[in-house]
């Protein structure tokens, strides 16, 4: 049994609907995210993928249950303790969430300026080095609005990596990118993870491509979840909603092979 970076224990999260009822987004969900591995959280839209990320970060509180990160229960943390916990995370947001009134350089330098006592000289060395590793040299003085979607994601990744996170969270990292760019981004993720050694959690509906990165796949469906060790296992599942999910996301080719075998 490998060590867990994040543990969900019986987590319940509901949202009130317009008609006054409650919708269970997570209905008593438990799972472990192993250290140093890549976990993909998949599921249709509105099935609680982004909510799961927000719960991990303490941006949202669950109605019940425990979310353990590094020995502390995230929903019970407040103030400084929560800030301290968050420094262990790096987050790449869906839209990259770059500060659009700052240059690429200032964006990437921001966490270093605000959270460390490093001098401007040291910051410059580190930022330029990261930008070079992510193939962004020469873009320092540009503004986010002047970048392509793929570059923006890379700047977001560069910024998230500055404080050397133990856990990287990716929210729909390839939404809005073409297939070639998507492959590039995935390759970059894999390479960076190998170099830095973080635990990675990817929320995505880019099935099946994102499965190439996954050591573990969690599929959310109607408040419940299923855990799989490999893409093959997903396709072999005999559960109806997983089969439907496979059919809609992986397409007819995978489906027909399943039928033939």
């Amino acid at each position: 049994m490998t060590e867990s970076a994040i543990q969900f224990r019986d987590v319940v999260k509901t949202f009130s609907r317009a008609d006054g009822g409650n919708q269970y987004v997570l209905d008593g969900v438990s799972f472990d995210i192993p250290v140093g591995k890549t976990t993909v959280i998949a599921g249709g839209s509105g099935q609680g993928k982004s909510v799961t990320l927000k719960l991990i970060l303490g941006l949202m509180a669950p109605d019940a249950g425990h979310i353990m990160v590094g020995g502390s229960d995230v929903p019970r943390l407040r103030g400084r303790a929560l800030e301290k916990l968050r420094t262990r995370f790096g987050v790449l947001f869906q839209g990259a969430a770059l500060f659009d009134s700052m240059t690429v350089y200032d964006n990437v330098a921001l966490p270093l300026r605000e959270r460390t006592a490093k001098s401007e000289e040291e910051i410059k060395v580190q930022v330029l080095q990261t930008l070079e590793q992510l193939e962004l040299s020469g873009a320092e003085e540009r503004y986010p609005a002047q970048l392509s979607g793929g570059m923006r994601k890379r700047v977001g990744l560069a910024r998230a990596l500055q404080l050397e996170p133990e856990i990287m969270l990716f929210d729909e990292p390839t939404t809005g990118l073409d297939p070639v760019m998507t492959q590039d981004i995935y390759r970059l993720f894999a390479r960076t993870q190998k170099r830095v050694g973080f635990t990675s959690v990817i929320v995505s509906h880019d099935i099946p491509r994102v499965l190439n990165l996954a050591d573990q796949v969690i599929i959310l469906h109607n408040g419940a979840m299923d855990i799989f060790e490999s893409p093959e296992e997903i396709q072999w599942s005999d559960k109806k909603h997983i089969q439907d999910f496979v059919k809609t996301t992986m397409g007819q080719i995978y489906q027909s092979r399943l039928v033939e075998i």
Partner: protein
Amino acid sequence: MQLNFIGKLGRQGIYILEDLGRMGVYLFKAIAAVFKTPFRLRECIKQVHFIGAGSLAVIFFTALSTGMVLGLQGYYSLSKFGAEGMLGSAVSLTLIMELGPVLTALMVAGRAGSAMCAELGIMAISEQIDALDCMAIDPFRYLITPKFIGALISVPLLTALFDVIGIAGGYIAGVKLMGVNPGSFVEGMRSSVTNHDIYLGFVKSVVFSLLVVWICTGRGFFVREIRGAGFGAESVSRVTTQAVVLSSIAVLVFDYLLTAVLL
């Protein structure tokens, strides 16, 4: 049908309470973050420049025209009783106690408040505020508090400027155009304006600046929580309108309350 109506009423009530609570906590956090290190002195100065220096032209023209209109209108009313000599006192008291603080706050709400609301709203919908949270950078210390400090420093100063320019406008209209005796204008002003009047104007300008910056930044910050605002760009535009309207109304309501309590 009837139950449905009651349910709706209840939900609306709960929503309003929620909203008030949210805004209350927000105000508390923004003020508490003033004492959080490291201070963002540069950003505070930038905000004073934006809210204060940036509003100079608007304040200058509003004050001058208000003062001149007051001069003309005052002359017209007072001359009916043969009391033109009281013009200086009437113009200066009206400006210092009422129009100066109120109009300055309304101008700042329209010019800087709307800009602050839109800026924060866009940051909220594009997850830039979440990103700050995730980098463990307190968005209050980083974004909100400098705006509060900027407004609290610049609005009272702008109000003082408004008073001076307005009185000058009244002087131009009353003395230079209508021919009121300059000595009685100045003497009337000096004998009737007390420290308490100036104090009242100052208290008002501080309270109004807090109201405007609180409502405008708060609406933008919570753009995703506001019911009926919609999503995306539309939500920002609606919330910005709402912020300016709400803060203007709040200024007018508090103007009455403060006058009633402090006069």
